[in-house]
């Protein structure tokens, strides 16, 4: 990156460290932190949307919709979610390619699943085999995000369903007595009030989501774990910056990163809880009212 780093073998001490930490691969490593953040930023709202949909479906008056909602919320309870991660990434990939295959090559005669192979016509590959490496990575990342959103959506659905049930029934009855329609009760009374009940569960979920991000590595995304292993491994003299096995220090760095993320989230969520408890008919709300008078 710097001009003085052109010949690493002549460097020593602080210069060496500085040049070492700014190699192209290290910049990729730093970018992968952005990847993780991006995953969090995209997944959190997406999972909330899935969760909201699931919770509403589980409360629906239409039986089939209710069953789907209940099945979705129950999905994550008994099975480790890493199983879902590994499953959905392949299943989604194959599903997309299969649909694309039906659409692109309707007169393809060979079976798609043949023995131990899954083979669609070349035009139906997603992304196309001629696409650049960047596209392949972006596609992998998109699949990972969707999988995360799907699995965490199920958790969120659980939390939101519980929160909707927790809103005092008298509130809803009062609203109906004033002549509000079901839709109005839902929009104006139920949803605004459920957040304070949902927040403890949702903050817990956010913490879990943060701690689930290293699983991106298992889904084949070049994330921080991938780079920590790649960069930390022992480098012989054949490399520009030879060093012994430093993976321990790289992983220590990752650990500190996650601890800082957790601490920051705790502080922010604590403030949010206080804000949402204001004026609520809960213990925290009562305590705040007493403190104010």
């Amino acid at each position, binding site marked *: 990156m710097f001009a003085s780093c052109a010949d690493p073998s002549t460097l020593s001490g602080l210069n060496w460290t500085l040049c070492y930490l700014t190699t192209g691969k290290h910049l990729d490593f730093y970018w992968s932190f952005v990847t993780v953040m991006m995953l969090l930023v995209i997944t959190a709202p997406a999972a909330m949307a899935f969760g909201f949909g699931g919770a509403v479906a589980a409360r629906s008056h239409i039986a089939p919709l209710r069953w789907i909602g209940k099945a979705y919320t129950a999905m*994550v*309870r*008994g*099975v*480790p*979610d*890493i*199983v879902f991660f*590994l*499953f959905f990434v*392949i*299943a989604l990939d*194959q599903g997309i390619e299969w649909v694309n295959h039906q659409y692109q090559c309707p007169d393809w005669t060979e079976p798609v*699943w043949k023995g*131990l*192979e*899954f083979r669609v016509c070349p035009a139906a590959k997603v992304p196309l085999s001629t696409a650049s490496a960047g596209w392949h990575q972006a596609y992998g990342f998109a699949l990972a995000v969707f999988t995360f959103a799907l699995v965490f959506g*199920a*958790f969120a659905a*659980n*939390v939101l369903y519980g929160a909707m049930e927790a809103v005092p029934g008298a509130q809803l009855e009062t609203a109906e007595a004033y002549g509000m329609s079901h839709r109005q009760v839902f929009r104006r009374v139920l949803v605004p009030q459920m957040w304070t009940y949902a927040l403890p569960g949702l903050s*817990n*979920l956010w913490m*879990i989501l*943060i*701690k*689930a*991000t*290293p*699983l991106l*590595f*298992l889904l084949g995304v070049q994330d921080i*774990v991938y780079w*920590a*292993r790649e960069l*930390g491994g022992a480098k012989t003299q054949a490399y520009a910056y030879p060093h012994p*096995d430093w*993976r*321990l220090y790289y*992983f*220590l760095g*990752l*650990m500190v990163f*996650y*601890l800082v993320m*957790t*601490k920051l989230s705790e502080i922010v969520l604590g403030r949010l809880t206080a804000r949402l408890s204001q004026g609520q008919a809960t213990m925290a709300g009562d305590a705040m009212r007493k403190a104010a008078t």
Partner: protein
Amino acid sequence: MTCWETIQAYGLRSLGIGERLLPSSDFTICQQVTLIGSGMIWNLYFGILALIFGFVLATAIAMARAARSPWLRKPAEWFIFVFRGSPLFIQFFLAYEALQLLPKAGFEIFGITVATSWTTKAWAGALFVMFLNTAAYSAEIFYGALRSIPRGDLEAADAYGITGWHKFRRIQWPTMLRLAWPAYTNEAIFLFHATTLVFFSGFPAFQQKGDALYYANYFADKTFNPFIPYPIVGTYFILLTLLVTLLFGVVNRYLNRHLPSNQRSRIRLRPQVIR
């Protein structure tokens, strides 16, 4: 090969007993069910041992966290924060790299050589990490329960002159367990779920002796068909979850046996998964 022969060949494959080579073509459902089931032995091994050892350490740490002296309280708080605040996945990697740095030849202590190579094996290293991890999570649960012991109970103990160790053993500890048990059941369930991470996180599966998910992943990679092996793992884990709920439910009933039925705490499964 009939299904019975397959079970004989692969039923204990995860322990290295039976057929050496994993099936590589003409996969049958029976093979997948057998091998993945054999992998469950490791999930049970990690889960059960980590729970037992972790329970003891968790009680100690919860007590330390509730102690008045900062010399006890601060380290306990930090221990809980570090293990609950970082992903288990990273803890596995970190522990594996750290254990690899131990001298290969072993230590010399008082003329006795202590071997170190076994610590990098999954059965020891990963178990150690899971033990510390579950201890931290359980300690937080126990600490919360310890703080919510009704004051009246403790005052009654004082009034009867029950103090010190006796008070802890007869009053505090049983009440703490009773209050913590529903949450602790969830912790146990998700500890079993977390055991699937072991062989994906640095610790190598020596001679392809892996856990359930390791074999499921093997089959999915070989057959390009995720729709059979992963649901099999899922089914095994649902059964395991039911079993754990059942066993912990028995203990829960025992802990609550002195209470009228309307005051008993029920076990409810809450989602709280990856660490």
